[in-house]
């Protein structure tokens, strides 16, 4: 009886909640950003890519930076769910759903932003019909689609027991939400055979998604590394991208943990211990990414080959120096400094650190793409002066902000529809603890 009371309490605590006042304001703001982004995209469709500041030099601008950012952040699904699950780490249970939702929503917008960058969306069909299998771009399309399907499955399978609870709790409701729950999980009875099949599938998925996640980031890095440009001509790029993706993904989870904990009053489930553990994970990942950054910048800077010197000096002490040092300090060094102390791994400092890591990571992607394109090995002759500079137009900013808002909107809606912390898994773990 005592257990059942506990179960009900856990279930009540973790059921998805209707938007409150702040939730509605938050959703409205996101919708507003999305609407502005959609209008800017309409203008881009109507007038062409001429509305952007991209040109013959910078042909990949803020859109591709944003794409790389989304791809990076999506890695978190495999980190929190797959890696920690396979390592038999149990403290991460309340964080798995958050990580999976972030992964699914960011991979959706990674795919969309690439189509935005193409200028004419109907040409995506040409990519499928006439694409060359020798091109890393085709590999990226294939691997992103695969990762998206796997991420969806990784979100869906652990959701099945919770869907049963949601259907039970809304038994008398005929709302659309309940219809959705029934459609997705009415077949789940929770019998031993179903549990066995589900456990087996989740384990297989966890094993499969790790190499696929590594592939998506490695192939994205190859889009750059297979192009002969200063700053991209590196054999280190795969590891550099994966380590950066792990860091930004973990940072995003920390931010989401704090926000959901506050918004849904989940202090009992997402505790200081979780922040402390995630803080330690973040330190390790920040140091790992820092190591790759040192390799990426210090070695070429030591040689300072003439064709690369303009690019490097622009980063270290030129036009992009403020952004570069901001990304290094705010995205890596200061977070490590804060998180090394126990007080720094408390929820609020962790939230601040998470925001710093995510913002630093976004600018880091911008720095990977733009300065390199401004310094080609073989500069074009007699080009207009504006080709030597790039600053995104308002349409580019609006579309980018719209896509970021869209990602947050998908996360918000998924958190409204599904429990943000796995209910059944939490109950099972509580029982195991008691036993």
């Amino acid at each position: 009886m005592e257990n059942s009371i506990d179960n009900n309490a856990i279930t009540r605590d973790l059921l998805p909640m209707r938007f409150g006042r702040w939730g509605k304001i938050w959703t409205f703001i996101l919708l507003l950003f999305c609407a502005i982004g959609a209008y800017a995209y309409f203008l881009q469709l109507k007038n062409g890519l001429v509305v952007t500041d991209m040109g013959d030099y910078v042909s990949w601008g803020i859109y591709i930076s944003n794409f790389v950012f989304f791809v990076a952040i999506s890695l978190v699904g495999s980190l929190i769910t797959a890696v920690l699950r396979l390592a038999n780490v149990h403290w991460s249970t309340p964080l798995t759903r958050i990580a999976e939702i972030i992964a699914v929503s960011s991979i959706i917008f990674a795919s969309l932003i690439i189509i935005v960058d193409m200028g004419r969306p109907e040409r995506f069909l040409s990519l499928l019909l006439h694409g060359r299998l020798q091109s890393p771009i085709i590999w990226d399309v294939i691997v992103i689609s695969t990762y998206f399907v796997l991420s969806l499955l990784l979100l869906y399978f652990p959701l099945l027991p919770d869907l049963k609870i949601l259907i039970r709790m809304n038994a008398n409701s005929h709302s659309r939400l309940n219809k959705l729950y029934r459609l997705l999980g009415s077949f789940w009875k929770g019998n031993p055979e179903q549990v066995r099949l589900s456990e087996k599938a989740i384990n297989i998925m966890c094993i499969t998604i790790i190499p696929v996640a590594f592939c998506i980031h490695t192939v994205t890095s190859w889009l750059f590394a297979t192009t002969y440009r200063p700053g991209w001509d590196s054999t280190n790029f795969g590891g550099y991208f994966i380590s950066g993706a792990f860091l930004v993904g973990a940072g995003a989870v920390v931010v989401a943990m704090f926000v959901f904990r506050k918004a849904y009053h989940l202090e009992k489930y997402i505790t200081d211990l979780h922040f402390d553990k995630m803080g330690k994970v973040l330190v390790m990942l920040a140091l790992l990414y820092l190591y790759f950054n040192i390799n990426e910048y210090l070695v070429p800077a030591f040689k300072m080959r003439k064709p690369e010197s303009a690019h490097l000096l622009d980063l270290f002490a030129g036009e992009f120096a403020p952004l570069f040092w901001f990304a290094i300090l705010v995205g890596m060094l200061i977070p490590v400094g804060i998180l090394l102390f126990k007080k720094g791994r408390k929820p609020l400092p962790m939230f601040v650190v998470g925001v710093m890591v995510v913002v630093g990571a976004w600018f880091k992607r911008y720095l990977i793409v733009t300065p390199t394109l401004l310094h080609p090995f073989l500069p074009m002759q007699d080009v207009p002066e504006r080709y030597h500079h790039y600053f995104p137009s308002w349409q580019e900013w609006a579309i980018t902000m719209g896509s970021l808002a869209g990602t947050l909107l998908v996360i918000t809606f998924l958190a409204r529809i599904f429990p943000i912390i796995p209910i059944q898994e939490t109950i099972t773990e509580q029982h195991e603890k008691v036993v």
Partner: protein
Amino acid sequence: MKRLCNFYPLLFSLCLQVPVSFSANGQDSARKTLLVDLSYHSLNNEVVYLSVHAKTKEKGKFQPVGGARLRLYLDKDSAVCLAGEIVTDTKGSAITFLPPSLKNQWNSAATHMFIALSDEDGAFNPSRTEASVVKAHLEMDTGQGRTIIAKIVELKNGEWVPVKAVEIKVAIKRSGSDLAVSDKESYTTDSTGTISAEFHRDNIPGAKNGLLTLVAKVDDNDTYGNLRVEKTEPWGTVLKLSDTFDKRSLWAARFKTPLWLLLMEYSIFLSVWSVVIYLIFQIIKIIRAGRLA
């Protein structure tokens, strides 16, 4: 006091003169000396041309002078002997061919002098450079066993006579520069004005038919200037260009993907997607297991 009063006008006039004299000296010292290297060239004993390299000394280093205007003369600096007017390029170099109008004058003597003149301008003082040359011919032939024979003769009293103790280089013309035919850098002519060089570059790629351009040359000789003759021989290996067009490669068209890449891609794709399909099949099994329960 009187003496002092006389001193002031003197001091005043000195003060006025000092800057003026400095200014005058400054103008002279501001002009630099234009140093001109003038060389005579003969190609295949037919084409004669002159090359000029203009430079100046700045801060202890020689710097090329671009845009220097020079007039070149044959034997005398008079209008009828004008060989050409040239302007040096950014590297300080320029060439000019001997014009047909000077043919008779060129044929009239065995020894000639070339004169390069530049006028005074804002940057440089006027300059005059002379270079004398004795007319000579360089001949080249090939013998058995891939031997190259070169001979130098000079015009003396209306006859071509062999010249001994002249350094001749024998080489193969390559893109950018000449490659010596053997390890020996140069050969010295004997009393018959002849040298003999063995061709030791057996596997060197030639043109389409294995043709190589052999070169015999005399470089910067004080008496004869620069002489050069060329001759082609099929002594190189035949160049076989490998044409990768329309073959399987990383840069080929869509249906020309390398097989190894196809194999890798399809095996990765199929193995991952077979897992995905298996997982979807697991959902069907879970649905069935639910119905049975």
